[in-house]
């Protein structure tokens, strides 16, 4: 009796959980297909008047195209719960050949009403796939073409740099560089952040207008001319900047990295101020974003922002080519203190940590 009721419970809960599996919707001509999905660790539990869904999806995707895949972005939405926003899961630094498969994890949590509709609470779609020839497939609603391409450029830059270290100074030179990078990562301050659209200030600190200082990178095709933002305690909002195209090519997109400094002199990278624009050679334009960043302090002294520095972190020209800071640019002490290594560098460091120097060199030689 007991075992059958337990079995009944298991069957019931499996059946019940099947109703909350995400809906994965890929286009018919998608270059990737889901060939397996495992939700083994997922659960749904009642919590007050709502259901807490803990979804752990281990997907296996297959490259069904003839080209090598370098990056992919999946779009994740929960219209019933948060109609005002969406999420994404992006994997970069991939090297997936035609008809090869690769894993992708999605771990999310949401509270849904008890009286929810029978529709799947989570929808997963494809925003984009980047191939090794830098061609792109996808709806690009989230701007993943640009994000994936930038990541790929950074990855190529860093792999080339590390290979040059081995060529110039042998494996030990590479090892020293990796260890230095790990040291910098350990020292780099990390902060939690909240962002709200519309500039709603939530603290009572007096607000002040603070001008940007700028870190000028010598090869940057864009010159930042001036700018300011509103600062109140641990909140920074509504940055506005003026930039000039100093190259001979029209620019359609750029990002300005935003470094904040607190009253103790600690600096950290707050975020980036992006701008889609049509900037002809020699032309100036202003960039303006109406959002608020807040840096909540979980215990300890609250942050008090005192100063700001901006720097050009990426540029996309009208012809689709891109500019990113070189390794030499990133070696500037102020940037080195605040900027995290690229995703590719972090991946290579992970390989070194888990498998050693030779495995790292073997990985570099694959490309």
């Amino acid at each position, binding site marked *: 009796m007991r075992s059958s009721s337990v079995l009944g419970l298991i069957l019931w809960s499996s059946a019940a959980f099947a109703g909350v599996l995400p809906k994965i919707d890929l286009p018919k001509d998608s270059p990737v297909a889901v060939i397996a999905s495992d939700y083994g660790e997922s659960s749904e539990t009642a919590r007050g008047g709502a259901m807490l869904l803990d979804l752990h999806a281990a997907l296996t995707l297959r490259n069904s195209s003839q080209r090598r895949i370098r990056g992919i972005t999946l779009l994740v939405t929960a219209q019933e719960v948060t109609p005002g926003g969406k999420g994404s899961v992006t994997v970069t630094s991939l090297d997936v050949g035609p008809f090869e498969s690769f894993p992708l994890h999605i771990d999310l949590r949401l509270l849904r009403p008890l009286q929810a509709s029978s529709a799947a609470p989570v929808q997963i779609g494809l925003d984009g796939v980047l191939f090794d020839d830098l061609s792109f497939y996808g709806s690009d609603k989230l701007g993943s073409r640009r994000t994936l391409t930038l990541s790929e450029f950074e990855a190529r830059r860093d792999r080339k740099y590390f290979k040059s270290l081995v060529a110039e100074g042998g494996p030990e030179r590479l090892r020293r560089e990796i260890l230095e990078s790990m040291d910098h990562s350990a020292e780099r301050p990390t902060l939690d952040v909240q962002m709200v659209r519309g500039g*709603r200030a939530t603290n009572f600190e007096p*607000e002040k207008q603070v001008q940007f200082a700028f870190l000028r990178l010598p090869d940057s095709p864009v010159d930042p001319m001036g700018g300011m933002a509103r600062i109140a305690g641990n909140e920074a909002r*509504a940055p506005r900047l003026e930039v000039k195209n100093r190259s001979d090519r029209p620019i359609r997109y750029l990002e300005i990295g935003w470094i904040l400094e607190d009253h103790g002199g600690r600096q950290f990278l707050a975020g980036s101020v992006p701008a889609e624009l049509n900037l002809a050679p020699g032309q*100036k334009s202003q960039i*303006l974003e109406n959002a608020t960043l807040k840096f909540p302090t979980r215990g300890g002294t609250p942050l008090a922002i005192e100063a700001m520095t901006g720097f050009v972190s990426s540029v996309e020209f009208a012809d689709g080519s891109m500019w990113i800071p070189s390794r030499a640019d990133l070696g500037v002490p102020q940037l080195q203190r605040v900027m995290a290594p690229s995703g590719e560098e972090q991946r290579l460091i992970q390989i070194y940590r888990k498998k050693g120097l030779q495995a790292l060199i073997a990985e570099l030689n694959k490309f």
Partner: protein
Amino acid sequence: MSERGAPSQLDASLQSAQELQNRFVSDNLRRIFLLIYRIVGNVADAQDLTQEAFIKALQRQDQLKDIDKAAHWLSRIASNTAIDFLRRNGKVNFCEIDSLVDPLSEPSESPEQAVLRTEHRAYLEQGLTCLTERERTALLLRDVEGLPADEVAEQMNCSKATVRSHIANARIKFKRYMDRGRRPMGKKV
């Protein structure tokens, strides 16, 4: 119910009160709208807040002791309404990227050609957006509405010294902005 063709005394007094109200609104509508518009920075919000300010004022007209001070009293209600709105919503209205006017003239264009009336006005309007909300509000109440500094302080719920500071900063910034428009930019920070 009045006799046909001959309004009763009550009807007459009601009509007169209505007329006074209409007159009060029409005499002050543009001024109050502009005051609120300059504080909040957009027409849609300014319209809602102007309506709200007049509704509040007319509902509280028994609180008005001195009829000669009605205009000032209304300004006070209007600016409080706008300031409360900004406080609740944290809205800051900068001009949008497309509508920004480049104050610089192109190298081949003379200063006289560059300064056309509408461009000049747009440039001045942009200058107001360079001020903080509090600076702009203090400047508008003091220099445009002509309220004395202590009354501005009361409306903005801060000390007279703070208001003076806002007013001075606003005047200095606006003047610097005007100076900037007369010479080429390019000053590196």
